[in-house]
Protein backbone atom coordinates (compact mmCIF):
# COMPACT_ATOMS: atom_id res chain seq x y z
CA UNK A 1 0.00 0.00 0.00
CA UNK A 2 1.63 3.22 -1.11
CA UNK A 3 1.64 6.36 1.01
CA UNK A 4 -0.67 8.14 -1.47
CA UNK A 5 -3.24 5.37 -1.19
CA UNK A 6 -3.11 5.63 2.58
CA UNK A 7 -3.55 9.37 2.51
CA UNK A 8 -6.51 9.08 0.20
CA UNK A 9 -8.09 6.45 2.38
CA UNK A 10 -7.59 8.49 5.54
CA UNK A 11 -9.62 11.32 4.14
CA UNK A 12 -12.68 9.10 4.12
CA UNK A 13 -12.10 8.17 7.71
CA UNK A 14 -12.21 9.56 11.15
CA UNK A 15 -9.46 9.18 13.63
CA UNK A 16 -10.63 6.84 16.36
CA UNK A 17 -7.43 6.59 18.26
CA UNK A 18 -4.46 8.92 18.51
CA UNK A 19 -1.73 9.62 20.98
CA UNK A 20 -3.30 12.06 23.46
CA UNK A 21 -2.13 15.68 23.55
CA UNK A 22 -1.49 15.25 27.22
CA UNK A 23 1.52 13.13 26.36
CA UNK A 24 4.60 15.03 25.25
CA UNK A 25 6.35 14.09 22.03
CA UNK A 26 9.31 12.70 23.91
CA UNK A 27 10.20 9.13 22.99
CA UNK A 28 9.68 6.80 25.95
CA UNK A 29 12.91 5.55 27.45
CA UNK A 30 11.37 2.27 28.49
CA UNK A 31 12.48 -1.10 27.19
CA UNK A 32 10.45 -2.50 24.31
CA UNK A 33 7.13 -3.85 25.48
CA UNK A 34 7.26 -2.36 28.95
CA UNK A 35 3.87 -1.70 30.49
CA UNK A 36 4.83 1.56 32.21
CA UNK A 37 4.19 3.74 29.23
CA UNK A 38 0.81 2.16 28.60
CA UNK A 39 -0.19 3.18 32.09
CA UNK A 40 1.18 6.68 31.54
CA UNK A 41 -0.79 6.98 28.35
CA UNK A 42 -4.03 5.78 29.84
CA UNK A 43 -3.79 8.20 32.75
CA UNK A 44 -3.18 11.01 30.31
CA UNK A 45 -6.07 9.91 28.11
CA UNK A 46 -8.39 10.21 31.07
CA UNK A 47 -6.95 13.59 32.04
CA UNK A 48 -7.44 14.78 28.50
CA UNK A 49 -10.91 13.44 28.07
CA UNK A 50 -12.02 14.64 31.47
CA UNK A 51 -10.58 18.05 30.67
CA UNK A 52 -8.85 18.25 34.01
CA UNK A 53 -5.31 18.88 32.84
CA UNK A 54 -5.24 22.34 34.39
CA UNK A 55 -6.23 20.88 37.72
CA UNK A 56 -4.01 17.81 37.68
CA UNK A 57 -0.72 17.32 39.46
CA UNK A 58 1.18 14.08 39.26
CA UNK A 59 3.92 12.63 41.40
CA UNK A 60 6.59 10.42 39.85
CA UNK A 61 8.51 7.82 41.85
CA UNK A 62 12.06 6.56 41.75
CA UNK A 63 11.98 3.49 39.58
CA UNK A 64 11.94 3.01 35.83
CA UNK A 65 9.11 5.51 35.70
CA UNK A 66 11.24 8.16 37.36
CA UNK A 67 11.04 10.17 34.15
CA UNK A 68 7.26 9.97 33.96
CA UNK A 69 7.24 13.76 33.97
CA UNK A 70 9.02 13.78 30.65
CA UNK A 71 5.99 12.14 29.08
CA UNK A 72 2.92 13.14 31.02
CA UNK A 73 2.42 16.75 30.08
CA UNK A 74 0.96 17.99 33.33
CA UNK A 75 2.55 19.66 36.33
CA UNK A 76 4.53 17.03 38.15
CA UNK A 77 6.86 16.44 41.04
CA UNK A 78 9.53 13.81 41.26
CA UNK A 79 9.48 12.24 44.74
CA UNK A 80 12.24 10.52 46.68
CA UNK A 81 12.23 6.73 46.48
CA UNK A 82 9.16 5.44 48.27
CA UNK A 83 7.74 8.81 49.22
CA UNK A 84 5.42 9.60 46.33
CA UNK A 85 2.32 9.29 48.46
CA UNK A 86 3.77 11.57 51.14
CA UNK A 87 4.62 14.11 48.46
CA UNK A 88 1.13 13.74 47.01
CA UNK A 89 -0.30 14.26 50.49
CA UNK A 90 1.67 17.49 50.81
CA UNK A 91 0.35 18.73 47.49
CA UNK A 92 -3.24 17.69 48.05
CA UNK A 93 -3.44 19.16 51.51
CA UNK A 94 -2.46 22.60 50.29
CA UNK A 95 -4.36 22.35 47.01
CA UNK A 96 -7.42 20.34 48.00
CA UNK A 97 -9.36 21.12 44.83
CA UNK A 98 -6.73 19.82 42.45
CA UNK A 99 -6.61 16.27 41.11
CA UNK A 100 -3.52 14.64 42.51
CA UNK A 101 -2.16 11.26 41.58
CA UNK A 102 0.94 9.36 42.56
CA UNK A 103 2.61 6.74 40.43
CA UNK A 104 4.87 4.10 41.93
CA UNK A 105 6.53 0.77 41.32
CA UNK A 106 6.47 -2.18 43.67
CA UNK A 107 9.83 -1.50 45.23
CA UNK A 108 8.89 2.10 45.70
CA UNK A 109 5.39 1.59 47.07
CA UNK A 110 5.62 -1.76 48.83
CA UNK A 111 9.19 -1.88 50.15
CA UNK A 112 10.81 1.41 51.08
CA UNK A 113 7.53 3.29 50.94
CA UNK A 114 5.40 0.86 52.94
CA UNK A 115 4.80 3.22 55.85
CA UNK A 116 3.85 6.11 53.61
CA UNK A 117 1.57 3.86 51.54
CA UNK A 118 -0.27 2.50 54.55
CA UNK A 119 -0.65 5.84 56.27
CA UNK A 120 -1.67 7.76 53.18
CA UNK A 121 -4.42 5.20 52.64
CA UNK A 122 -5.29 5.15 56.30
CA UNK A 123 -5.72 8.90 56.36
CA UNK A 124 -7.91 8.47 53.31
CA UNK A 125 -6.03 11.16 51.43
CA UNK A 126 -8.17 12.23 48.50
CA UNK A 127 -5.72 11.15 45.86
CA UNK A 128 -5.30 8.45 43.27
CA UNK A 129 -2.42 6.09 43.88
CA UNK A 130 -1.31 4.16 40.83
CA UNK A 131 0.82 1.15 41.68
CA UNK A 132 2.62 -0.65 38.89
CA UNK A 133 3.51 -4.10 40.10
CA UNK A 134 6.01 -5.86 37.88
CA UNK A 135 7.33 -8.05 40.69
CA UNK A 136 10.84 -6.74 40.28
CA UNK A 137 13.08 -3.71 40.66
CA UNK A 138 13.29 -2.75 37.02
CA UNK A 139 15.35 0.37 37.26
CA UNK A 140 18.22 -0.95 39.31
CA UNK A 141 18.64 -4.00 37.15
CA UNK A 142 16.23 -6.68 38.21
CA UNK A 143 16.47 -7.21 41.94
CA UNK A 144 13.82 -8.97 43.99
CA UNK A 145 10.82 -6.88 44.95
CA UNK A 146 8.41 -7.41 47.85
CA UNK A 147 5.95 -8.67 45.24
CA UNK A 148 8.37 -11.09 43.57
CA UNK A 149 6.79 -14.55 43.36
CA UNK A 150 8.11 -17.49 45.30
CA UNK A 151 10.60 -19.36 43.20
CA UNK A 152 11.05 -16.42 40.85
CA UNK A 153 14.63 -15.73 39.85
CA UNK A 154 15.95 -12.22 40.11
CA UNK A 155 19.43 -10.84 40.51
CA UNK A 156 19.03 -10.98 44.29
CA UNK A 157 17.20 -14.28 44.37
CA UNK A 158 19.39 -16.11 41.87
CA UNK A 159 18.07 -19.49 43.00
CA UNK A 160 14.49 -18.28 43.13
CA UNK A 161 12.78 -16.44 45.99
CA UNK A 162 12.39 -18.54 49.11
CA UNK A 163 10.29 -17.88 52.17
CA UNK A 164 13.21 -18.59 54.50
CA UNK A 165 15.36 -15.73 53.38
CA UNK A 166 12.93 -13.31 51.84
CA UNK A 167 9.46 -14.08 53.13
CA UNK A 168 6.29 -14.06 51.11
CA UNK A 169 5.15 -11.99 48.15
CA UNK A 170 3.43 -9.01 49.70
CA UNK A 171 -0.17 -8.36 48.72
CA UNK A 172 -0.17 -4.76 49.75
CA UNK A 173 -3.24 -3.96 47.70
CA UNK A 174 -5.31 -6.33 49.80
CA UNK A 175 -3.85 -4.68 52.88
CA UNK A 176 -4.78 -1.17 51.90
CA UNK A 177 -8.23 -2.40 50.91
CA UNK A 178 -8.73 -3.31 54.58
CA UNK A 179 -8.23 0.28 55.61
CA UNK A 180 -11.35 2.37 56.01
CA UNK A 181 -9.53 5.29 54.40
CA UNK A 182 -9.53 3.70 50.95
CA UNK A 183 -12.68 4.08 48.91
CA UNK A 184 -11.90 2.25 45.74
CA UNK A 185 -9.21 -0.40 45.44
CA UNK A 186 -8.80 -2.36 42.27
CA UNK A 187 -6.27 -4.51 40.48
CA UNK A 188 -5.89 -4.05 36.76
CA UNK A 189 -3.45 -4.87 34.00
CA UNK A 190 -2.46 -3.69 30.53
CA UNK A 191 -1.62 -6.95 28.84
CA UNK A 192 -4.60 -6.95 26.46
CA UNK A 193 -6.72 -4.28 24.81
CA UNK A 194 -9.61 -5.09 27.11
CA UNK A 195 -7.41 -4.86 30.16
CA UNK A 196 -6.38 -1.42 28.98
CA UNK A 197 -10.01 -0.44 28.58
CA UNK A 198 -10.77 -1.62 32.08
CA UNK A 199 -7.85 0.31 33.50
CA UNK A 200 -9.07 3.42 31.80
CA UNK A 201 -12.47 3.02 33.38
CA UNK A 202 -10.88 2.52 36.76
CA UNK A 203 -8.84 5.69 36.42
CA UNK A 204 -11.84 7.65 35.24
CA UNK A 205 -13.84 6.50 38.22
CA UNK A 206 -10.99 7.32 40.56
CA UNK A 207 -10.79 10.92 39.42
CA UNK A 208 -14.54 11.16 39.77
CA UNK A 209 -14.34 9.85 43.34
CA UNK A 210 -11.51 12.22 44.05
CA UNK A 211 -13.71 15.06 42.91
CA UNK A 212 -16.34 13.83 45.34
CA UNK A 213 -13.75 13.62 48.13
CA UNK A 214 -14.45 9.99 48.80
CA UNK A 215 -11.02 9.04 50.07
CA UNK A 216 -8.06 7.23 48.60
CA UNK A 217 -8.40 5.42 45.29
CA UNK A 218 -5.76 2.79 44.76
CA UNK A 219 -5.14 1.05 41.46
CA UNK A 220 -2.64 -1.75 41.20
CA UNK A 221 -1.59 -2.50 37.65
CA UNK A 222 -0.06 -5.94 37.33
CA UNK A 223 2.54 -5.31 34.68
CA UNK A 224 5.57 -6.80 33.06
CA UNK A 225 9.28 -6.19 32.99
CA UNK A 226 10.58 -7.96 29.91
CA UNK A 227 14.16 -6.95 30.69
CA UNK A 228 14.11 -7.97 34.33
CA UNK A 229 12.21 -11.13 33.60
CA UNK A 230 14.52 -11.86 30.69
CA UNK A 231 11.71 -12.51 28.24
CA UNK A 232 10.32 -11.02 25.10
CA UNK A 233 7.41 -8.68 25.64
CA UNK A 234 4.98 -11.22 24.24
CA UNK A 235 6.34 -13.97 26.48
CA UNK A 236 6.19 -11.63 29.43
CA UNK A 237 2.48 -11.08 28.99
CA UNK A 238 1.82 -14.77 28.83
CA UNK A 239 3.99 -15.34 31.87
CA UNK A 240 2.13 -12.62 33.69
CA UNK A 241 -1.23 -14.27 33.09
CA UNK A 242 0.06 -17.65 34.07
CA UNK A 243 2.13 -16.73 37.10
CA UNK A 244 1.17 -13.31 38.41
CA UNK A 245 -2.61 -13.52 38.12
CA UNK A 246 -3.04 -16.53 40.41
CA UNK A 247 -1.51 -14.51 43.25
CA UNK A 248 -2.57 -11.08 42.06
CA UNK A 249 -5.97 -11.67 40.45
CA UNK A 250 -7.33 -8.72 38.50
CA UNK A 251 -10.58 -7.14 39.54
CA UNK A 252 -12.03 -4.80 42.11
CA UNK A 253 -11.00 -5.51 45.68
CA UNK A 254 -13.03 -2.78 47.24
CA UNK A 255 -15.59 -0.96 45.18
CA UNK A 256 -18.37 1.39 46.13
CA UNK A 257 -21.81 -0.01 45.41
Amino acid sequence: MGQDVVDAALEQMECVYARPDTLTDTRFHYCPGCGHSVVHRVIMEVVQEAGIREQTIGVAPVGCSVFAYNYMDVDMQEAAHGRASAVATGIKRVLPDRFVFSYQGDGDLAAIGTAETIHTCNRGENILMVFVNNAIYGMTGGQMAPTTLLGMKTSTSPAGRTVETAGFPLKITEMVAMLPGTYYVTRQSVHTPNAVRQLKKAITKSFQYQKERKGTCFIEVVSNCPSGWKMTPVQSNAWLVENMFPLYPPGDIKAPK
Partner: protein
Amino acid sequence: MAKGTVVFDIENCKGCELCIEACPQDSLELSPRINAQGYHYVVLVKDNCTGCTNCALVCPDAVITVYREKKKTRVPVARISGVTQNITVTIDEEGKPS
Protein backbone atom coordinates in the same frame (compact mmCIF):
# COMPACT_ATOMS: atom_id res chain seq x y z
CA MET B 1 -17.42 -5.15 9.87
CA ALA B 2 -16.03 -1.66 9.92
CA LYS B 3 -13.22 -0.73 7.66
CA GLY B 4 -10.24 0.85 9.29
CA THR B 5 -6.58 1.48 9.06
CA VAL B 6 -3.62 2.26 11.22
CA VAL B 7 -0.65 4.57 10.89
CA PHE B 8 2.61 4.03 12.73
CA ASP B 9 5.20 6.47 13.90
CA ILE B 10 7.84 3.96 12.84
CA GLU B 11 10.82 5.84 14.21
CA ASN B 12 9.45 5.42 17.70
CA CYS B 13 8.29 1.83 17.32
CA LYS B 14 10.40 -0.57 19.37
CA GLY B 15 9.30 -3.73 17.67
CA CYS B 16 7.88 -5.24 20.83
CA GLU B 17 5.23 -7.10 18.81
CA LEU B 18 2.51 -6.51 21.36
CA CYS B 19 0.32 -4.90 18.73
CA ILE B 20 0.81 -7.90 16.46
CA GLU B 21 -0.32 -10.14 19.29
CA ALA B 22 -3.33 -7.93 20.00
CA CYS B 23 -4.62 -7.58 16.45
CA PRO B 24 -7.66 -9.82 15.97
CA GLN B 25 -7.28 -9.53 12.19
CA ASP B 26 -3.65 -10.60 12.02
CA SER B 27 -3.04 -7.46 10.03
CA LEU B 28 0.37 -6.57 11.42
CA GLU B 29 3.90 -7.80 11.03
CA LEU B 30 7.42 -6.71 11.87
CA SER B 31 9.33 -5.19 9.06
CA PRO B 32 12.61 -6.86 8.15
CA ARG B 33 14.07 -3.35 8.21
CA ILE B 34 15.15 -1.49 11.27
CA ASN B 35 14.64 2.12 12.26
CA ALA B 36 17.32 4.48 13.48
CA GLN B 37 16.93 3.15 16.99
CA GLY B 38 17.84 -0.30 15.70
CA TYR B 39 14.39 -1.79 16.05
CA HIS B 40 12.43 -3.72 13.49
CA TYR B 41 9.25 -1.74 13.28
CA VAL B 42 5.69 -2.79 12.68
CA VAL B 43 3.84 -2.51 9.41
CA LEU B 44 0.28 -3.14 8.27
CA VAL B 45 0.48 -6.09 5.93
CA LYS B 46 -3.16 -6.88 5.19
CA ASP B 47 -6.14 -4.93 3.99
CA ASN B 48 -8.51 -6.25 6.64
CA CYS B 49 -8.04 -3.75 9.46
CA THR B 50 -11.30 -2.95 11.21
CA GLY B 51 -10.00 0.03 13.14
CA CYS B 52 -10.77 -1.76 16.36
CA THR B 53 -7.94 0.15 18.15
CA ASN B 54 -6.70 -2.96 19.91
CA CYS B 55 -3.19 -2.51 18.64
CA ALA B 56 -3.11 1.12 19.72
CA LEU B 57 -4.42 0.30 23.14
CA VAL B 58 -1.60 -2.06 23.95
CA CYS B 59 1.17 -0.18 22.19
CA PRO B 60 3.59 0.89 24.91
CA ASP B 61 5.10 3.58 22.77
CA ALA B 62 1.85 5.18 21.70
CA VAL B 63 2.97 5.20 18.11
CA ILE B 64 -0.25 3.96 16.53
CA THR B 65 -3.00 6.15 15.18
CA VAL B 66 -6.20 4.36 14.18
CA TYR B 67 -8.77 5.44 11.62
CA ARG B 68 -12.19 4.07 10.90
CA GLU B 69 -14.92 4.77 8.37
CA LYS B 70 -17.16 7.47 9.77
CA LYS B 71 -20.40 6.39 11.37
CA LYS B 72 -20.71 6.29 15.15
CA THR B 73 -21.71 9.13 17.35
CA ARG B 74 -20.23 9.41 20.72
CA VAL B 75 -22.13 8.66 23.88
CA PRO B 76 -20.83 10.35 26.99
CA VAL B 77 -21.08 7.91 29.87
CA ALA B 78 -19.17 9.58 32.63
CA ARG B 79 -18.77 13.12 33.73
CA ILE B 80 -16.48 14.66 36.28
CA SER B 81 -18.45 17.65 37.34
CA GLY B 82 -17.65 20.93 38.88
CA VAL B 83 -14.25 21.69 37.46
CA THR B 84 -13.64 24.90 35.62
CA GLN B 85 -14.16 23.54 32.14
CA ASN B 86 -16.65 21.22 30.58
CA ILE B 87 -15.58 17.70 31.17
CA THR B 88 -17.00 14.89 29.22
CA VAL B 89 -15.57 11.49 29.66
CA THR B 90 -16.25 9.85 26.38
CA ILE B 91 -16.06 6.18 26.93
CA ASP B 92 -18.73 4.56 24.85
CA GLU B 93 -20.99 1.84 26.08
CA GLU B 94 -18.70 -0.96 25.02
CA GLY B 95 -15.88 0.64 26.89
CA LYS B 96 -13.99 1.82 23.87
CA PRO B 97 -12.38 5.19 24.27
CA SER B 98 -13.29 7.58 21.55
